[in-house]
């Protein structure tokens, strides 16, 4: 793997205040047609079903409207908002029961016999400030849950992994670390995409459980507030007037968010940064996508491959994009980033997957 640090365009500045858009008309939740759902009315935080080992909770209160499919044939359950925000809180559960109810996928992780608990707070995307905002706004909560997990999970220590260049997150964490003697900060070089768990494990001797800030915060909500995670931060940035971080309900349509922000005209010009364009498709804000980049200018035209081999040299997962070998691809987009002929190599892989 070649050490590549992605340079940020400092003319793109994100507003320091978070905009809350927590009143969507409807939300789209990942669904499987084999699930039988008898309810019509749902409450906020209500457990609806399990899908692919993950629990799906309703982020709003409202009425189940219909089941829809997107262009990629993904099925979604549509819930219409009644704007009442009727919240369901699970009570009288102990620590383990709470984890089992809210985050069963993390329970196995935490039960494994490991000594160290890691928080992977590395933000690879130079334009994505969502996790920085989360770390800055919820520092105390995240540190509190990590310490609680350390005690309950019998971990000897907690290590917070950050990039040397993430100065804002470092400052936010350092100022609160004094009261947690078993939580340590570890800084890593600003190499892309070291935040990816597979790449991280290859380059850093990780022997333990790894959580990300979103997971840690959702655990905080589950353990201390008896609530399911219903909202998340996303960054809408790029060549627009007012790049900003928005707090949205999980499952909100991105188009609706852009309409609220009065920048819906950019919908077709969105890129999932360093990965590939998703033009023209319905985008649902799931738990894993946190940054959307608007490219108002035309992209550079693709040229003929000059066989420089940099896509192979840079690939952190030893793929050979030039030979169409995408085994172990993590869609980091580094091959497209370094290509001197502006070929969207990572994009070709995404297109293949969607077909």
């Amino acid at each position, binding site marked *: 793997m070649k050490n590549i640090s992605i340079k940020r*365009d400092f003319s*793109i500045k994100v507003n320091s205040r978070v905009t809350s858009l927590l009143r969507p008309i409807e939300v789209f939740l990942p669904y499987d047609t084999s699930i039988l759902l008898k309810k019509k009315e749902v409450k906020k935080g209500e457990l609806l079903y399990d899908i692919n080992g993950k629990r799906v909770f309703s982020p709003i209160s409202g009425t189940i409207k219909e089941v829809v499919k997107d262009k990629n044939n993904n099925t979604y359950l549509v819930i219409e908002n009644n704007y009442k925000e009727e919240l369901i809180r699970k009570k009288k559960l102990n620590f383990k029961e709470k984890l089992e109810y809210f985050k069963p996928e993390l329970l196995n992780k935490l039960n494994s016999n490991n000594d160290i608990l890691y928080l992977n707070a590395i933000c690879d995307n130079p334009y994505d400030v969502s996790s920085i905002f989360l770390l800055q706004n919820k520092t105390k909560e995240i540190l509190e849950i990590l310490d609680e997990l350390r005690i309950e999970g019998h971990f000897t220590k907690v290590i917070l992994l950050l990039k040397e260049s993430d100065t804002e997150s470092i400052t936010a964490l350092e100022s609160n670390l004094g009261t947690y003697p078993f939580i340590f900060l570890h800084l890593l070089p600003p190499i892309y995409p070291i935040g990816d768990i597979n790449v991280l494990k290859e380059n850093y001797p990780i022997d333990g459980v790894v959580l990300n800030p979103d997971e840690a915060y959702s655990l905080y909500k589950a353990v201390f507030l008896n609530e399911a995670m219903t909202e998340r931060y996303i960054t809408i940035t790029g060549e627009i007037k007012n790049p900003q971080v928005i707090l949205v309900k999980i499952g909100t349509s991105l188009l609706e968010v852009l309409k609220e922000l009065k920048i819906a005209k950019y919908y077709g010009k969105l890129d999932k940064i360093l990965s590939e364009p998703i033009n023209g498709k319905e985008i649902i804000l799931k738990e894993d996508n946190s940054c959307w980049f608007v490219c108002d200018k035309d992209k550079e035209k693709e040229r003929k491959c000059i*066989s420089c081999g940099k896509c192979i*040299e840079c690939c952190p997962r030893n793929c050979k994009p030039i030979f169409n070998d995408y085994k172990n691809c993590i869609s980091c987009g580094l091959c497209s980033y*370094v290509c*001197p002929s502006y070929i969207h190599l990572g994009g070709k892989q995404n297109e293949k997957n969607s077909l």
Partner: protein
Amino acid sequence: MKKIHYEEKPKLNNLYILMLFFLFIYGIYKNGLIVSNNMALIHSIILILIGPLSGLILDLIFEKKVGKFTLYGFLLSISMPYNTNILWFSLFLIPYYLLLNSKLKINPVIMFHVLFVFLFSLSYENILEANVPLFYGMLDTFFGRSIGGIGTTCLWILIISFIFFSTRFYYKKEIPLLSLGSFCICSIIYDLITKNNALFLHLLNPTVFYLTVFLLPLNEYSPILKKNQYIYAILTGIMMYIFSFYKPILGLYIGAFIISLGLGIGKLLSKKRN
């Protein structure tokens, strides 16, 4: 979308052209100004500029900016011997430019150089070198006074070029290093066997540097995978050394051409198989 793309992209070709321009200046100094012959000066200028200018016209027609044709035109014309016939050379440029866009990935500069010099049995000496018995020392060679292509004799510019190119992301710097290394090792082995002391004589040949620094690492005509690049570089170094016994300058091109031919055919066959 330049903001999320690697920054150094367009600079390698420009750097190539810039360094070739310095070689061109030295070329006209050595083959025109020192000789003190106006005809020789005009001949040198036209011969070196005919490649990049014709390439530039093609680039402006097809790409609307300086690009591949200009660079490859420059690379070929600067490597030609002083005695090249300008008219024949201009005619030769037509199939040369056509080959640039073909699927056959044999290094066109090396191929056309070998073909042209072989076909017209050209010698690499300029007017002065052909008529006056000159004995070039090691320092002379370093500063460019040696026999070779019209603009490829200045060793220090070639070394500086390599240093500059090595800082570029898209330059395959392992190729010149390994081919020079294998050339050097061959030379040492030969010296040890024959008890000769000609290591520096071989190593300070500027054509070796021009070939390894400028021509062998050209992205399109060199292997993609690192392992293959190493094999290609080492084999080219060895072949260049072997053929330098046949002819000290043309032999180097022939050695490199044989490996490039093998690579080009291999690439074509693997493409057909896929």
